[in-house]
């Protein structure tokens, strides 16, 4: 069963159809499978030049972060600004690491982002499967509720959420930032859209005929099919959770920070050293950049293949 090739959901139609249990048949004429789908003109030097400009634009702020992290505060305050690496990189990294609580921050962020990712993907897959393939009463209303939730600005919940967290005595503790983020309406929507098309109903029925109960169906049929979309959702969720900012800055403090909270502490000091601040920014970004450098191809492929709502 795990050999089932998932059908790519139709990428061009993110419109939700509440009545759609039946898989929307992807337009057969779209050339699929081959990576060279679509029209392929040869890129000329103009194309390469434009792309090169954007490459520089994309990388420059990151590279300059590293450059700035290698200079003293006094050097950074001079014009023209430095374009080459200085000799204070280790000093600054060391100082950011120690004064900014960066070690704890990175560790915390990994736990937080990891926990959020696991639970978001798991619950979104379960709910997405139910919404995509199982008949049940109140389904449409509930799905509408999910869509509506996507509209809720995160700022909205902050006030009562903080009161609840305080009531529970969780201020400045990691569960304060994990629990409120454990599910995502977007994730449910995302998985539903994928499974509606990727999961053949016959497959489910066949499993039923074999006497499998729902949990077994999920384990042996749904999860294998959903895996590519789950991977993409996991990546999106992890990056978002890693960079999550608004809620952690309120629920946590510099004493027990995530990376983003620690960074804001570095940035607004009494005698802040820009070099150290940049070193902190570098430390907070590096883990994700390394992941991107190693798995970049897979991530790009995943985003393009798995779906595209983001």
């Amino acid at each position, binding site marked *: 069963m795990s050999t089932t090739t998932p059908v790519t959901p139709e990428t061009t139609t993110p419109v939700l159809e509440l009545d759609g249990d039946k898989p929307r048949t992807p337009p057969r004429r779209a050339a699929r499978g081959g990576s060279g789908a679509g029209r392929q003109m040869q890129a000329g030097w103009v194309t390469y030049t434009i792309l090169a400009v954007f490459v520089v634009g994309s990388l420059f702020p990151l590279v300059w972060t590293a450059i700035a992290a290698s200079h003293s505060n006094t050097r950074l305050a001079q014009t023209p600004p430095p374009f080459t690496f200085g000799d204070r990189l280790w000093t600054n990294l060391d100082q950011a690491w120690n004064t900014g609580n960066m070690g704890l921050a990175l560790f915390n962020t990994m736990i937080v982002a990891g926990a959020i990712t696991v639970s978001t993907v798991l619950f979104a897959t*379960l709910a997405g499967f139910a919404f995509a393939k199982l008949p049940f009463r109140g389904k449409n209303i509930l799905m509408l509720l999910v869509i*509506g939730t996507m509209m*809720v600005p995160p700022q909205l919940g902050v006030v009562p959420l903080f009161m609840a967290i305080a009531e529970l005595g969780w201020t400045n503790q990691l569960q304060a930032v994990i629990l409120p983020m454990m599910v995502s309406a977007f994730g449910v929507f995302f998985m539903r859209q994928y499974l509606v098309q990727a999961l053949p109903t016959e497959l489910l029925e066949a499993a039923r005929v074999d006497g499998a109960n729902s949990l077994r169906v999920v384990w042996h049929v749904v999860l294998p099919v959903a895996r590519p979309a789950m991977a993409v959702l996991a990546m999106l969720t992890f*990056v978002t959770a890693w960079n999550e900012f608004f809620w952690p800055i309120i629920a946590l403090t510099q004493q027990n920070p995530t990376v983003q909270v620690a960074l804001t502490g570095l940035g607004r000091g009494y005698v802040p050293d820009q070099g150290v601040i940049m070193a902190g920014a570098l430390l907070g*970004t590096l883990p994700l950049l390394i992941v*991107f450098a190693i798995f970049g191809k897979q991530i790009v492929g995943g985003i393009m293949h798995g779906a595209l709502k983001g």
Partner: protein
Amino acid sequence: MTTDRTNAAPPAEGGAAPRPAPDATADEKELRRRRRRSWRYRMDTKASPYGFVAPFFLFFGAFGLFPLLFTGWAALHRVRLQNPGEMEWAGLHNFTRLLSDEFFWNALANTFTIGILATVPQLAMALGLAHLLNYKMRGQNFFRVVMLTPYATSVAAATLVFAILYGRDYGMINWALDLVGINPVDWKNNTWASQIAISTIVIWRWTGYNTLIYLAAMQAVPRDLYESAALDGASPWKQFLHVTLPSLRPTILFTVVVSTIGATQLFGEPLLFAGSPSGGNQNQYQTLGLYMYEMGWMNFNLGRASAIAWSMFLLLILIGLAYWAVSKWITRSTGGRRSSR
């Protein structure tokens, strides 16, 4: 199993269960086993969907719905951050006063202009880049990965760097402008300059991501559409205009909506740009999210902050409805076009 379902679910289920006779045969045992299984089966199919959606709604109820309703309730009261448990009924006061609150309207207008400044160039560039990346070329993956790296950078890190690059007297951008003979721009204090500066941070982070989405959609456009357009003598530009763009309409709409929601909730960039929730000394770039934050956490007025939060919510609902209407319209018109072909 299908047969099981039809014949092993007698309506007599609820009636007296056959008392196990002392001389129970294997047949009877089998029958009981099947019956029990079918009951389980029906319970399973009925209950499992709820079981699958339950975790989501449990958490959503606790951490999404409850705060939503509570904020609505708090918005009707005078509440202060120092003592959130003490509420004094204020009716619609917190909402009505927003109507005459120039700072609210200012924040709304800023949210709107920054939203436009950040979204339009971003999506236009993404579209163009996707088109270029759709060419046959060397280093495809390199370009794609590099374009996506800003996405991995956090708002906090990106804003810190840009804030330094945008420094008035010692920033690199003004230094570069000076090289080409342009007077230094006060990126922090000038209204338009500060809004543009903040928009560039958003653009920088999100263009690559949207590019990949467009690229995926472009690769799904049926090739024969281009072929027939080429046969009709359409230039590449015309093909882009008349084949690519229309095929991408739903995707474009989708990215527009996602960007709009993001823009409405814009918070981190303007907060960290100068490190103050007032969004500039005259609130030049204070967004709604920032105004809410300032009201709640700097002025300690939770009631008013809640009212601001709710008006943001209502605003997003409106945007959502508009999205829904437009997307219905697009599906219909696209579907019509398809069937007529």
